[in-house]
């Protein structure tokens, strides 16, 4: 029983991490059809912001939940104004430019901070289930993922801002004719997505080492999750995160973490063959 409880917790944890990582991309890609290749580096910046702030004596929760999203959100604002703004509607060019941006960020961080893996200690201590030890922090990740997803869903579903954003996403020209400025909505959405990346970076900082190249591995997972999810951003991303997280953790449990990743990717490729529009291209079409 203790073992199955632990495995369940690990599966939930894997799903929650994947969901946290993917939401930022889901928001930016789903709303704006912009694929931000530097998203992993945004996440890395969030993790660095957390580590640096925490080591400078700031309370870890403030560093993680406030400083990381704020600083990366601000960075996202600068990137949107200077770079992304010029490339709307040119999806491949956006991918290339943000890929360049990602290389630039990695290069800069390597030059200024160095490649040494840094970290902060995991807060909240341990928890024992039967004979097994696990960390309370894992529970915190699950709760955070659920909270952020719910908050985002409620914002999009019920608030005025959410309605305007969904309208802009459906028909920018019409929204513009009705007095909404699509360029400002895009800007806001990009900043929101960046802040979510920063938050995810802050939350994973204590459990994974913080290094300049950490972003890419997280990002590819998040990308295939969003691609597997399809058009309804939040529902789709949650469902895909559930499926991929389960496959990943189950295979990891049976073999090694590397084969967990391979199995997850294989699932994603096969699923794209069966459901090219993602899960929500076929099911749950009317959700957000």
């Amino acid at each position, binding site marked *: 029983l203790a073992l199955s409880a632990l495995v369940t917790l690990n599966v939930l944890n894997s799903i929650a991490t994947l969901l946290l990582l993917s939401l930022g991309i889901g928001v930016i890609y789903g709303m704006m059809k912009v*694929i931000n290749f530097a998203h992993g580096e945004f996440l890395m910046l969030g993790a660095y912001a957390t580590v640096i702030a925490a080591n400078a004596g700031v309370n870890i929760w403030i560093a993680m939940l406030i400083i990381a999203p704020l600083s990366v959100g601000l960075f996202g604002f600068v990137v949107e104004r200077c*770079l992304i703004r*010029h*490339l709307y509607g040119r*999806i*491949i*060019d956006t*991918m*290339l*430019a943000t*890929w*360049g*941006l*990602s*290389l*630039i*960020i*990695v*290069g*800069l961080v*390597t*030059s200024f901070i160095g490649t040494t893996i840094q970290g902060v200690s995991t807060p909240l201590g341990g928890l024992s289930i039967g004979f097994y030890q696990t960390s309370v922090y894992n529970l915190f990740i699950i709760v955070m993922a659920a909270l952020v997803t719910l908050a985002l869903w409620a914002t999009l579903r019920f608030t005025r801002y959410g309605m305007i954003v969904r309208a802009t996403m459906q028909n920018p020209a019409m929204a513009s004719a009705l007095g909404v400025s699509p360029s400002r909505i895009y800007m806001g959405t990009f900043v929101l997505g960046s802040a979510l990346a920063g938050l995810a970076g802050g939350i994973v900082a204590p459990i994974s080492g913080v290094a300049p190249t950490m972003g*890419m*591995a997280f990002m*590819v997972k998040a*990308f*295939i999750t969003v*691609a597997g999810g399809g058009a309804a951003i939040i529902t789709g991303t949650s469902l895909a995160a559930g499926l991929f997280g389960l496959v990943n953790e189950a295979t990891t449990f049976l073999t*090694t973490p*590397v084969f967990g*990743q*391979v199995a997850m*990717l294989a699932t*994603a*490729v*096969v699923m*794209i*063959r*069966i459901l*090219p529009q993602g899960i929500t291209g076929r099911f749950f079409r009317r959700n957000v």
Partner: protein
Amino acid sequence: MTARTVLACTGAVVVGLALFLLPPRILSSFGLNQLSIMIIMALFGLSQGFLWGFGGIMSFGQSAFFGLGAYAYAIAAIALGGSGSAVALAIAIPAIFAALLGYFMFYGRVSDAYVGIITLTIAVILSNVMNSTAGDVYQIAGVPLGGFNGIPGVPPLAMPTTGEYLDYDGTWYVAVGSLVVVYIGLRGILASRFGRVVVAIRENETRATLFGYDPRLYKLIVFALSGGIAGLAGSLYTAWSGFVSPTVFDLSMAAQSVIFVLIGGLGTLLGPILGAVFIQYLMTVVGTQQVLNASLLLGIILVVFVLLVPKGALPMARLYAGRAWRVLSAAKTRAPRSRLEVPS
């Protein structure tokens, strides 16, 4: 054929032969070695240039095929001893892998952006897998994969007849020879009926489908071809360096192939070659100093070209040369300038 074309062709052949035969005679071994790697990277650039510029398929993970070729060569050359079959395997395995992947992507009709994401993911996963293969459990045909450290002591290319290892000069001739053969082969493909259909699909997929061509099959074949060329480049790379490690799957490797095409010129075959030589030269220069990080430099080049020179250097140069030519000839003849502008 006019006198001018004859002259141009003769000129091209003479310059080509000079570029082929002179370097081993005038350069030091080190210089020749550097030049060989430029040519090998040019071959890699060509694989992306063909795929992206003519097939209209953007692979963000071209390093996956390059790396597969590199590893296939290393393992086969050690296990089998001969380099001819090793190179053949290094072409076949990535091509088959690309065909398999292409089946899922093109028959699933995923969008261009998703093709980019999936290829990128494949490269990252392969890199992770290869990094985790340390230990004796992981070996193929008796060759340990070595994880992060890679496979050292890979034999260089050998003469198929005598089994004698090639020296620097020999490697140079093989590299340039492969590049020329692939270039001419691709030119031939593009001139054929098949190539015309491929370009037609790039231009308008729906229209090509309505004419009765199956874009999925054509894309699949182009993808597999490009994978094979990248694999050939990978095998030559391993033979050149005598060593292979998971860095061949790196995203900076994949990024380089895209940058070669982007700065050289999308939709040309010569552009990626020139781009590769230029970037490889730049990398060698950057490697000798500490101020500027290589990844930073690649990133800056990528962003600047996407924003300012999206068509690449070669088409841009042609455009400006054309304009300059017209301005000059107009000045000479005093003819009124045409109002027709080249569409950009």
